[in-house]
Structure formats: structure tokens, C-alpha cells
């Protein structure tokens, strides 16, 4: 796998300088998944 964590931080710092606001640092996310399944008769 190729990873580029240092570049993300560097890009985020650059964007922060230009835009001044919040920059969200993230990654490529997985598909939809079930978090919780509850079933009760009450």
C-alpha cells in the first residue's frame, strides 16, 4: 500500500494559511456498514 501521511499534513498547513479556517484531514473511507442491530420483544 502507498501511504502519504507527511504530505497530507503539509498540504493541510498550506491550505490553512490560504483559507484561515478549519481544514479537515482525512483518508479514503470504507463502504457502508452496520454499527448496531437490536431486537427485543419489550
Amino acid at each position, binding site marked *: 500500500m502507498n501511504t502519504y501521511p507527511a504530505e497530507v499534513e503539509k498540504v493541510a498547513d498550506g491550505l490553512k494559511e490560504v483559507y484561515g479556517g478549519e481544514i479537515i484531514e482525512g483518508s479514503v473511507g470504507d463502504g457502508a456498514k*452496520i454499527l448496531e442491530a437490536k431486537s427485543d420483544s419489550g
Partner: protein
Amino acid sequence: MISIKAIAHPIQGLIKYHGLRDFGDRTPFHSSISACVAPLATEVEVVLREGEDEYWVDGTLIKRGRGRIDAVVNEIRRLAGRKERISVHSHNNFPSGIGLGSSSSGFASLALAAARAFDLALDDKNLSQIARLGSGSAARSVTGRFSELVAGPDAYAYQMDHELEMGICVVPLVKATPTDWAHRTVLSSPFLRARLAYVERALEEMRRAIKEADIAKIGELAERDTLNLHAVTMTGAEGANPLVSRDDTDHGASTRAAG
């Protein structure tokens, strides 16, 4: 009581689309490719209930404009052969309505949670087709990571073959273009036909760049495609164009596009 919680990440288009061949089925004119963006996420809880369907988004009860939610819920209920009503509570961990794709993650997690609540076993392809009834981009949010939405009467998404772990930076801007406005306005753009001629090659180049983990090429192609899409969306005739706006900073005109 049956209660199911599901989560999905919103997508950001790499080869985007605006324009629907069929607004009912939300089938696009051409295929599109995107990446899911974590940690942005939407969580949806579906609870079976009696009475009427009830939809809440970030604590607000949705009373008008429920058509796309109904389309997803009713299709799942029809396929499952069930009649129960549901309540839906949807929560985003990021701002909605500014082009970050909350409809993609919202409809993807809704489709998954509702299908599970009604005991409907669906593979990713079928689930993506149902999520697409809410939002075309939701199909790609179902399958995750780098995904393609394959255009056609039964448009569906699949996760692309890749070995790429890519960092993403998101700059939230205040203004964005309402997606349905964009889908309508491109139909009157004189450049739509030119985009349809261009996009097949762009899709092929993007598939190759993702497979080869060529991040520089992915960026170059995504930037070129965004400009191409803007050229179409900015030249439609659907009223005042929100794509060209003056933002709140001193950086001049800003443009945004989802898809």
C-alpha cells in the same frame, strides 16, 4: 422492537456528473468515479414502528421534500414484502448543504439500515441501486473507497480494484451549488454534448490512475474534470447561477461542485 444503526462516509467526485437521464430513477447520463471521505460520516438509525413513516435529520423532523427518502424506503419495503412503518434518525458529523456530500452518506446508510431492519438480504450491487434512488452518489457511498457508478437503466456502483491509501484534506466553504439545480441546468447547456464525448476517455484514464496508485495523475485528472464539469454547469439556463459567487474572504470568486 427492531432497531438498526448503520454508518457511511460521503463521497467526493473525481470524475463527477451533473445531469440525470431519468429524474425518477436518478440514472445519470454517464458513469462517475469518487473516493469516500473519512472521518466524515452519517449515522442512521432505523426503528420499525406503527403509524406513519417519520424522518429526522440532525434533530429536525422532515415534513416537506420527503420524496427521495420515500423512494428508498418504499422500494426496500416492496422488495421485502413488508408493511411496517419506520422512524429514521440521521446524524451527520459534518456540516450539510455545503457540498461535502451528506446526501450520499445519508442515503447509503439509510438503505443499509432499512434493508437490515426488514430482513432483506442484498449484495452491494443491489443495495447501491436502491441507495441511488435517493442520490446517485449514495450508490458509491455504499460500496466505499474508490468506487465507480456505472451508468445505464439499472445504474449500480462497485468498488474499484486498487491498493492505494490516499490522504485527503477538506476545505469547508460556505457556499455550494444545490445538486438538483445542477442536474437540471446542465440539460440546457450547449456544452453537455461535448462533455459526454470527453468523459469516456476521462473515466478510462482515472480507472488506470487509481489502479496504478498514481496520485499525481488522479489529482490532475480530477482537477481537469472539475473544470470541464463547471463549464457545463455554469452555462445552463436554469435561472440565476449560484456556481459563481463571491466568498467571505479576500480570495475572490469561488466555485464548488458536488457529484
